[in-house]
């Protein structure tokens, strides 16, 4: 039996100027189930709220309809007032008489009639409202950071510094990511490793951070605050506890001709290797694909030379299970290689290189110790051409977006070249110069004006070799598309930044969405840039889109704050307006037939399978189950379910049905 109170607000004159509030209250008072009805000047004021509270206490109201402004404005206010008076807050509904009625219609009977209808509809709805309790979910205060580039490092440190545990996993043998490969960084030209390595060391030494390198996420289940992750620690063929990092093995290893990933193939490494001297951890791994022992069954030299006996040829991958409350995805990006470009010779010419390869050439730790020498013959190029937008902004190549960092690093590259090769000639072909950022435009101007880099606006149509030179054919659009032909010694392609291979697969493991280019999708492009649609999983850095260092770091800190905010609570409190699968008496148990088509309809992967068992443990029925931790309450499953087995609290079948039935007819 309902005892509903209707409280009609005048909102000063905002409502009463066009709606006859007294009549609304009087009419509502006659409806079945309404035991109290009143109109008042300002319902949201203290006296107004007191009016509601007193009525709840005195009349024993079981439901409240406040006819005032938009529920988006004051629903929390009135629900709180109800709660304070001892009525479950979810027994309160608001009829929107102001925004949806008095402000948009002229004074008159039709407007008052509409107001009455709006009240009646909610009176009927509130009869079917149920007392609900906020959902509490415990929080495991450990974060998992996936990816040990600058974004992952920054996020890990920021979270760890708030006092929470962090597990950082990195697929390569060392953390550092692309940033560790860079020579110098724009716009300040400070040395990349000089600023990065201290952070890497800090990660390794931080008491709150557990670092797993050479490790990948195997699987993930659970939900915000309560994830369970399985991590595959790939075998390093090494007992890390025994290894001192002396490096003897790497010098003795006979397989020395393996292109170094760190050097982008411009240098060589051994089969047992540390990717670069400043690696963290600074301990080698055996690359089993290229190790003579693993491929041919013979060698074991490293084992022999190791002073501590740390080599473990029989070591297997290890699966580590961890429980975490939040996840930061910082898996970064990759770049297109030169073989992507038929017009530039499919990567066959050694002196056409990528921007990242140029970084290695320009880096003091690189294969040429920082001297710009061309890969083919080691000569210093006298003429160098940089091409921006190699692949990017090219619909035909499937990469319509701007890779964002190239304009800046090309300017940097050209500048570095000019500094290192005196008298050298550098050309930059560009479409537009996108130098938005603090000190960025100035930096580009410096390259052009101070360092004499030749910027040519136009696209390069073809590059081919002729007499030991690379002929770069293009057009200068600023000169009326005048053909340009440059004989260059070396060409650097600013190839497009793209999502990592396997990003899609990882996204599916994590149930986060991704965009058409397989970059991970943020929850909202403006207001939730570091959140994903899966609560508790956050994004940092270039895994979301091409990002430069300051942006990656900002995102990482942003994500870290989100994690810290989450971890500041022992329990998460969530609105109980979530979906529920019905239960019925035996032998039906639930009208759900377990078709599980709702599983794919749910945007949040919140629907799981549940087995209903009898006392002996035998499965009687398989039905859907909504995970209250994951459900966000959209109700897509509710409208989808054929048997009406799922209902959503706050917007139940009964509630919405009775609302619709009361819309046009009095009940």
């Amino acid at each position, binding site marked *: 039996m309902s005892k509903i109170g209707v409280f009609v607000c005048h909102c000063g004159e905002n409502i009463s100027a066009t709606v006859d509030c007294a009549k609304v209250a009087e009419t509502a008072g006659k409806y079945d189930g309404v035991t109290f009805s009143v109109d008042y000047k300002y319902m949201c004021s203290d006296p107004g709220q007191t009016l509601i509270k007193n009525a709840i206490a005195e009349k024993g109201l079981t439901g409240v309809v406040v006819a005032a402004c938009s529920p988006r404005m004051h629903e929390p206010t009135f629900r709180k007032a109800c709660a304070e008076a001892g009525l479950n807050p979810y027994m309160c509904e608001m009829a929107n008489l102001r925004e949806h009625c008095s402000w948009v219609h002229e004074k008159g009977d039709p407007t008052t009639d509409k107001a009455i209808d709006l009240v009646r509809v909610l009176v009927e709805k509130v009869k079917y409202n149920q007392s609900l309790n906020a959902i509490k979910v415990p929080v495991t205060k450990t974060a998992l950071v996936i990816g040990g580039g600058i974004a992952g490092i920054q996020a890990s440190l920021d979270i760890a510094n708030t006092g929470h545990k962090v597990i950082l996993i990195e697929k390569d043998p060392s953390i550092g990511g692309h940033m560790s490969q860079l020579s110098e960084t724009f716009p300040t030209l400070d040395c990349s490793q000089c600023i990065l390595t201290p952070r890497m060391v800090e990660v390794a030494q931080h008491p709150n951070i557990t670092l797993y390198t050479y490790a990948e996420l195997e699987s993930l289940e659970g939900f915000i605050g309560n994830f369970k992750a399985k991590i595959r620690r790939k075998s390093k063929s090494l007992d890390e506890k025994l290894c001192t990092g002396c490096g003897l093995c790497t010098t003795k290893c006979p397989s020395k001709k393996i292109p170094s990933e760190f050097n982008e193939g411009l240098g060589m490494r051994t089969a047992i290797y540390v990717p670069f001297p400043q690696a963290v951890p600074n301990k080698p791994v055996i690359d089993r694909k290229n190790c003579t022992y693993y491929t041919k069954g013979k060698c074991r030299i490293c084992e022999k030379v190791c002073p501590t006996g740390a080599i473990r040829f029989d070591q297997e991958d290890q699966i580590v299970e961890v429980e975490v409350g939040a996840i930061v995805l910082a898996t970064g990006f990759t770049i297109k290689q030169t073989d992507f470009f038929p017009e530039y010779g499919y990567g066959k010419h050694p002196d056409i290189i990528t921007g990242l390869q140029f970084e290695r050439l320009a880096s003091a730790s690189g294969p040429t110790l920082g001297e710009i020498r061309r890969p083919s013959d080691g000569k210093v190029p006298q003429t160098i051409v940089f091409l921006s937008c190699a692949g990017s902004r090219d619909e035909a190549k499937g990469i319509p977006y701007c890779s964002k960092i190239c304009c800046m690093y090309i300017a940097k590259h050209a500048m570095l070249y000019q500094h290192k090769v005196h008298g050298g000639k550098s050309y930059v072909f560009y479409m537009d110069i996108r130098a938005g950022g603090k000190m960025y435009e100035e930096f580009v101007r410096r390259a052009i004006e101070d360092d004499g880099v030749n910027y040519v606006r136009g696209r390069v149509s073809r590059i081919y070799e002729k007499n030991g030179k690379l002929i770069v054919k293009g057009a200068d659009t600023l000169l009326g598309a005048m053909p340009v032909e440059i004989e260059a010694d070396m060409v650097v392609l600013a190839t497009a930044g793209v999502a990592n291979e396997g990003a899609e697969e990882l996204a599916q493991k994590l149930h986060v969405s991704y965009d058409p280019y397989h970059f991970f999708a943020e929850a909202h492009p403006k207001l939730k840039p570091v959140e994903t649609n899966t609560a508790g999983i956050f994004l940092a850095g270039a895994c979301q889109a091409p990002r430069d260092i300051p942006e990656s770091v900002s995102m990482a800190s942003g994500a870290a704050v989100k994690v810290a905010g989450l971890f500041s609570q022992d329990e998460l409190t969530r609105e109980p307006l979530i979906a529920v699968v019905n239960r019925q008496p035996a032998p*039906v148990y639930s009208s759900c037939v377990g078709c599980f*088509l709702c599983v794919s309809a749910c945007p949040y992967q919140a629907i799981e399978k549940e087995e209903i068992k009898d006392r002996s443990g035998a499965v009687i029925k398989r039905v859907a189950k909504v995970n209250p931790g994951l459900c966000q309450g959209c109700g897509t499953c509710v409208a989808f379910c054929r048997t009406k087995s799922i209902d959503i609290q706050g917007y139940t079948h*009964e509630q919405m049905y009775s609302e619709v*039935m009361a819309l046009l007819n009095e009940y």
Partner: protein
Amino acid sequence: MDELRKKAGELLEASAVKVIIGYENGSDGKTRALFAEKPEETARLVFDSRCVMNLATYVTKKEVRNKGRIGLVATLPVMRAVIQLASEHQVDDAGLLVIGITPESKMVEFKDLAEVEAFVHRYQIEIDSKQKEMLDKLEKMTPSERWDFWIRELTPCFKCYACRAACPMCYCHRCTVDFNQPQWVPVPSHELGNIEWHIMRAIHLAGRCVDCDACYNACPLAIPLNLLTKRMLLDAKEHLGGYQPSIKADHLMSTYKPDDKDNFII
């Protein structure tokens, strides 16, 4: 047919299945479902063009399932239904073995449902030309004429729910029409109750209908209610790229494409 009987007998003999569901001769020159549990009963199996009932509707019935693993004599639409049922987690290899009958009336053996699926995918769901003609005819009418047509057709419907009972995809333990809190569909078989029931039925089969016409064949009043699901089939093809029952793939109506038809939305 002999091949079919032999195979069915062998399966029962070897206890590979506990019951074979196939067709036998029925009344008035019709065929009907046969549930053969003993090898000798398989001699009653027949197969020919009269065998139009969709036997897949039996495999979700509790009384039949309780017998144990089912061997199902399945024509193409039946196989489609089986695959759709499998994709909706209603049948699996442990409970069902399909003995296929190709559109050329050849028996074909399948190791598992995955093979059935592969077979099914060799054929597109095509609406037959006569019905297409009828659909086109309706299409050309004005909405009012169509409304009159349907009210006229649906008025005789007395809601015996034979269409639901015969449909292999209508396996819910409790149908929405049996749901009375709230009462979504009026119980009496008046025009409103009838039209709402048929709308609901058609929508529920959108993306799931295997085009077997079981509903129409079952209707004691021969109401062309299969036109509704056929319209849904055509729409699925036209607007959503069509579908094929498949065990693993997402369901047409529980997925979406960002570039789905949008031109009717202001």
